[in-house]
């Protein structure tokens, strides 16, 4: 049976569609939904294109599979019997260009709790024997997972495995699985809802790990970790940012954006104690074979105000005493 998760789904558009359906207690027929989506709401895909009939189908199908709407006599109605749906309805802010944090959290709950999404993707992150988890459980217990493209005797395929439990593995061999898992659920979690992040490592592949949906910049845990990682015997300590990302990212469940934002904050406040070390862009993308792959590889690097990609930073030991650092006091 074909999988239903698709990467073209924009959760902003899902919110708009849900809001439209919620205005019609008796439900909405697919044809009405199509006219509304294309002619009135002018819904867009994630890439900014006006939605096609197929995309509208995927949108309502996604809402149905996630258990947010149900179909009664050919009409789509909001599935109000679950409290989580009520929470979502109460939080909806239609018309805004982005999802609010609460909307993201609630949509993420639906995605993580969905059995297909768990079976094909999220279970790979979870320790053996973990059952019936929600977003909090995923964020608390999930461990890093790698995906990579491999040439197999049966042809090219993608392998997804848990780094700590390599026997937890899934092979993706069909285009349907690829669209549903790699470009569907993975994109939803990473790009649309922001509760996993990913960094590409040469020789390994894309390392994915659960991250909190929000948090402060600077992050006090990262400030503390940075301070403790400084070698007191050496005047300067050099850090590989990608190594920091693959260690601190999964440990503190922090996104690259917040991690690098925190390091930029330190640089902006103590420029005399922090030196940003740029990389050669050609080398950073040495294994990229397309401009898309190039962008994907570069997302693992911190980009400074001058647009340079930063691979390392060096930090002077004086940073330990440079300030009282009230930002880390709560930790």
């Amino acid at each position, binding site marked *: 049976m074909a999988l239903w998760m698709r990467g073209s789904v924009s959760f902003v558009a899902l919110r708009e569609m849900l809001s439209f359906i919620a205005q019609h207690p008796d439900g909405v027929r697919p044809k009405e939904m199509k006219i509304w989506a294309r002619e009135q709401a002018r819904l867009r895909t994630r890439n900014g294109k006006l939605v096609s009939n197929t995309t509208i189908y995927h949108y309502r199908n996604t809402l149905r599979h996630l258990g947010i709407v149900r179909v009664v006599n050919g009409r789509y109605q909001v599935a109000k019997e679950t409290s989580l749906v009520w929470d979502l309805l109460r939080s909806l802010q239609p018309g805004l260009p982005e999802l609010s944090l609460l909307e993201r959290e609630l949509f993420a709950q639906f995605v993580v709790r969905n059995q297909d999404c768990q079976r094909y993707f999220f279970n790979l992150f979870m320790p053996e024997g973990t059952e019936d988890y929600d977003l909090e459980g995923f964020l608390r217990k999930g461990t890093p997972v790698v995906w990579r493209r491999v040439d197999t005797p049966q042809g090219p395929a993608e392998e997804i495995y848990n780094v700590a439990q390599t026997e937890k593995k899934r092979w993706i061999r069909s285009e349907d699985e690829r669209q549903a898992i790699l470009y569907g659920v993975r994109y939803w979690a990473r790009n649309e809802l922001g509760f996993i992040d990913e960094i590409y490592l040469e020789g390994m592949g894309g390392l994915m790990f659960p991250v909190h949906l929000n948090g402060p*910049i600077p992050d006090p845990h990262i400030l503390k970790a940075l301070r403790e990682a400084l070698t007191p015997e050496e005047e300067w300590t050099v850090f590989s940012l990608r190594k920091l990302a693959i260690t601190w990212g999964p440990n503190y469940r922090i996104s690259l954006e917040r991690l690098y934002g925190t390091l930029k904050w330190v640089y902006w406040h103590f*420029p005399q104690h*922090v030196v940003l*070390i*740029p*990389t050669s862009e*050609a080398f950073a993308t*040495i*294994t990229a074979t397309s401009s898309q792959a190039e962008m994907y590889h570069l997302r693992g690097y911190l980009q400074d105000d001058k647009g340079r990609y930063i691979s390392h930073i060096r930090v002077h030991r004086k940073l330990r005493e440079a300030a009282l650092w009230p930002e880390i006091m709560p930790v």
Partner: protein
Amino acid sequence: MAGDYARLKLRFNPFEPAASGVPIFNGLWIPDRWATPLRGFLDEMQHTQGAKAFAILGEYGSGKTYLLRWLEREELPKRRVRAFFFDNPGVQFYDLANTLMRQLGREEFAKALWEFLDPRLQGFQPSLFGRSFQEWLRAIKEHRREEDAVRELSQRLQEKGIASDEEIRHKLARLIMETYERPYFEYRDFVAGRRGALVPEKEEAPYFAAILRALRLTGGAKSVAFLIDEFEEISLQKRLTKRQAHEYLATMKQLINMTEREQFWIFVAMTPQAAEITEQLEPALWERFISHGEHRFQIPPLNMEEAKKLVAHRLAAARPEGDSGPDSLFPFPENLVELLREDVYSSPRRLVKVCSVAVARAASEEIPVPFTAEYLEKIQEELYPRPPQEAPSS
């Protein structure tokens, strides 16, 4: 010379304005913390049979190029090692051959090899006064003895232990002979498989080894060293094809293999990130390259003492004879380094650039000497402004 350097007790500005070059005057100075591990490696290499490769890692402006030039000019000649410097050589193996041969010059290389081989053609009377290389080539041409000459040169290449492979000997012999018509190299000479190419196909490593032996023997050197700068800037184009990325790694592998068999050393300067990626792509290759971490040197940022010494050394080289100035840092104040930010004095490029601008401006304007803290602060902020103080919003 433009500018009044006399009141600064200098003959010229000893700091490069671009601060990415290397001074051409005097001996090159590097801190002991840099020199000691490198000298240790050089001593060890003279008696080793294993891979003779060394990675110098450092951020942009940390002194990688300077360190390679120090090896080339100061340390390697003392050990009778003939050094060749390469800047961003390209991904393919023959890119190195091309760069190397162009550096040497075709006529120079061919002539040196010809002299070393000392070919004798049967029935070809040597001149009473000895022929020059060009005269010999001309005489061969006039007497239509090219084929005999190639055969003889090929024979001599084997006898002298430069190459045993027939094709390689033939290509090298042709390289000498055809110098008469074309005393320069073209890139196509090094594209294997092309008509008239001077390099054999699929024989890159043995051919290159033969060239290395020729360089060593003709120069009376114990070893040949390649100093490769900016290895990470392997391609001018932004994106490498899969094949080019493979070629880059293959080139590196071939070079390392060669250091094991030949009297050949390589020093590669790269950014820490280039080392990191190479290690991730080919862990085994990288481990062999750096001999499990022993043949790797991460250039440490300058400390205050080293920064002060760097400035003093540069100034000393530019002092008028018999006038060393009031103190070794003049026209800079004695506490120069304390006045600069850590991120500035710790980076040789930044330090040299700040000093360069300070001296240049003082040579053309009425700047009080020794320079004041305000003057230096102003230059420092002009060149390396602090980032905006606002933190990103959460």
